[in-house]
């Protein structure tokens, strides 16, 4: 045997065994509606629990860069909604109230106790708002990451000159059910908890490699859509007693990928506010 290579072999074998055993602690949670299982990921310790809700069609990997960092200062929970990622299909229609009820059932099955700080990106924003309206005593705070705002959608629709292609309503599609979700989100009443909304109106620089047509589209968005989005987000936040808005010019809609550190900072700040609030201890004891 060659001595140096033998030492290398022993070292690499130990390393290989250690590496082969590495994996994320995904859990399978039994769904409340049809008994099928959902994929979920928990990390960290402490209260409140930060619960992540992804945007339309996105798996829990949306939070890949954020959850591990948040898990360093509190407990976290992310999951694939029914029919997304590696979760089984759920009951239809896939509107906000159904999704909120399913999340509530999933949290109690997974024995994740309130209080929760809900973090929702894009369409996940209306979902967590509806959850907070349905289960106000369980929610200690909200972080909305560039949420889809019903007023903005209405505004954008009214400005469209061409009619989008009509297709039959698909009740299993969250986007098709979005009008229902927006209506539910509009009517729900949020509890008096810290709410921070991050709105992305950037980035200002457009990469050179983008085709000219896409560049024009981005420029159009920056000129008209982003100011409108900012206006609607600001108006909504101002209507909340503990509302706060964070404006970023470094990201567009993909904030969890573009500026994960900003999302982590905002969550940290909301968690700190929740921990500082005396009412959070009361909520923590509730089932």
């Amino acid at each position, binding site marked *: 045997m060659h001595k140096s290579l033998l030492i290398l072999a022993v070292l*690499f074998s130990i390393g*290989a065994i250690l590496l082969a055993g590495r*994996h994320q602690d995904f859990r399978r949670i039994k769904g409340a509606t049809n008994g*099928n*299982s959902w994929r979920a990921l928990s990390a960290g310790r402490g209260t409140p629990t930060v619960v992540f809700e992804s945007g339309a069609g*996105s798996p829990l990997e949306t939070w890949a860069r954020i959850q591990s960092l948040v898990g360093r200062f509190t407990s976290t929970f992310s999951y694939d909604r029914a029919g997304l990622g590696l979760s089984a299909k759920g009951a239809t229609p896939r509107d906000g109230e159904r999704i909120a009820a399913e999340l509530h059932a999933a949290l109690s099955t997974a024995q994740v106790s309130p209080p929760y700080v809900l973090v929702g990106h894009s369409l996940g924003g209306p979902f967590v708002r509806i959850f907070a309206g349905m289960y106000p005593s369980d929610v200690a705070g909200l972080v909305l990451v560039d949420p889809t705002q019903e007023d903005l959608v209405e505004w954008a629709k009214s400005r469209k000159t061409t009619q989008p292609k009509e297709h039959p309503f698909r009740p299993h599609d969250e986007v098709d059910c979005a009008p229902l979700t927006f209506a539910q989100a509009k009517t729900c009443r949020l509890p008096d908890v810290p709410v921070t909304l991050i709105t992305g109106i950037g980035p200002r620089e457009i990469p050179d490699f983008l085709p000219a047509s896409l560049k024009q589209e981005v420029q159009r968005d920056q000129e008209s859509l982003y100011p409108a989005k900012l206006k609607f987000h600001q108006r909504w936040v101002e209507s909340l007693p503990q509302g706060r808005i964070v404006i970023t010019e470094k990201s567009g809609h*993909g904030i969890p990928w573009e500026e994960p550190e900003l999302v982590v900072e905002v969550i940290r700040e909301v968690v700190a506010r929740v921990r500082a609030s005396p009412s959070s201890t009361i909520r923590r004891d509730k089932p």
Partner: protein
Amino acid sequence: MIGERLPSPLSALAWEIWRQKRWWFCLSAALTIAAYVLNLCFPAAIRYTVTGYDRLLPINGFMVAGALLLIFGAFNYTGFNPQKEWTGLPYHLFTLPVKTVVLVTVPLALGVLAVETVFVTWAKFASTFHERISAPWMAVLIGAYMIFYQTILWVLAAFRSLRVITLALTGTSFVGVAFLPAFGEYISSPWLSEGFGMAMMAGLVVVAFFIAWSGVARQRFGGGQRRNIIRAWLDWAEDRLPRRERPFSSGANAQFWFEWRRSGRLLPLCLAAILIVVVLPLSWHLRHEPGAVVWILAWTLATPMILAVPIGKGFSKPDFWSSSLSVSSFLATRPLATGEWIVIKMKVAALSTILTWTLVLAFLSVWLPLWANLDSLNSVRVVLWMVHGHSVYPQYLLASFGFFAVALITWKFLVNGLWIGLSGRRRLFVGSAALYGFICLAGMITLTTVTNREEGAEPPTPYDPDRLVATVQWIVAGAVMAKFGLAAWSWRSIRRCRVQQYLWLWIGGTVGLLSGAGLIWSDGTLSALLMVLGFPPIDSLRLASLLVFSALLTIPLARLGLAPTALASNRHAR
């Protein structure tokens, strides 16, 4: 057969084909029967429904391809002629008391009969639903390809292994032609009808038959004035190329030159031919298709590695162009140490790899900026740009690491089998080639099954790729342990300085690969890419460990250590 009288030369011909390749026929029949039994095992609800048929299609598809390929293999009715140094129609048949037309017609007719029999048997499984290509049209194409196949094998006898390129190009063209009538549904043209296609094929088959007949007739009568016109032209062209006139400074240099001329330049030449004949026209033709660029790019990057597998098998032999695995006297008596010979082969493989990837880079640097539709590629770039803090430099770094990795894999495929090819053991050599073939086939079946599963009816619970990845993770970890364990044993008798030299190279290359793996995994880049490209989510920690294992396994170590001993035993066996 001694003392017995054969009924006729015709039967003798048929008997010889059967006798030589009976196992191929039996295997093809066994595959067909196995598939039939396998299909019977599935309930009617699966066999006779569209979704069930879709699920069975990958298995049936690969089995029908296997059965047909075996028949084509059986009708590779050729023999090596040592006088002419070609591999054409077995030259001992030239003495049979039959006319050349019979000599050519019998194998052609038997080939068509055999391949059509297999196809008709298989049509039951393989063409029930969504028929893009009708069974009669397919039957005509398969029969025609058999004629073309045998014609190419016999007429281009002097080209020996290189005929595979012509066969592959003809086969690829046939795949394109097969879909022409399907386009007729969208474009109204009489040229795109099955009837026209069949008439065209019949005409081409007649032409091919006459080419085969005249080609074999020329060979039978000793060639003739124009017998080797292409070869003579190639020789003439090669003579005009600048050639080395300086004496070699050392035996090692001479051997390097010899190895390069015999085998090293083949990979870049083949790749250049594919780039010019296939990729370049295809990329121009599909320049307005946004999705095509990803596929063309993927195939362009995969081609050197795919080519390196069969070329590496030949490269691993003492002489690329010889069917014998033993070291010839010419090579065995070279004033070179066995270890030095291996080092030269590795260097030639490295030069071959560098030149090949330089060609790829040259093509990409012309194609991508000038006429490629980059829309779909840019959507991937946008994700990387977003993930990497709006900087494009990590993309360039990733591309560089990617090139480094694929070049190393190409080199690995060229040198990995040296210990087998140089050992002179035919069974080991054929067995390893069969293993490669089996792995490729199994991989393709698995990939198609998984892909088909995604496209077919969705099960209530989605398929969890983590289970598969977890199994692969442990298998690869085992491979890493085996690699280093074997390396400690295989390098034991190799000179210390050589071990150190190579180990430094190995460490350098592996550290480079590990850095690339780190870059692609960090910041959730890989997770983001998987999401954007529509792949199912995979545990990122498992992915990270797989990347590390892949980096450790890429550069060959253990098996290379076996090569000097293998060559020494082969070299001194005479």
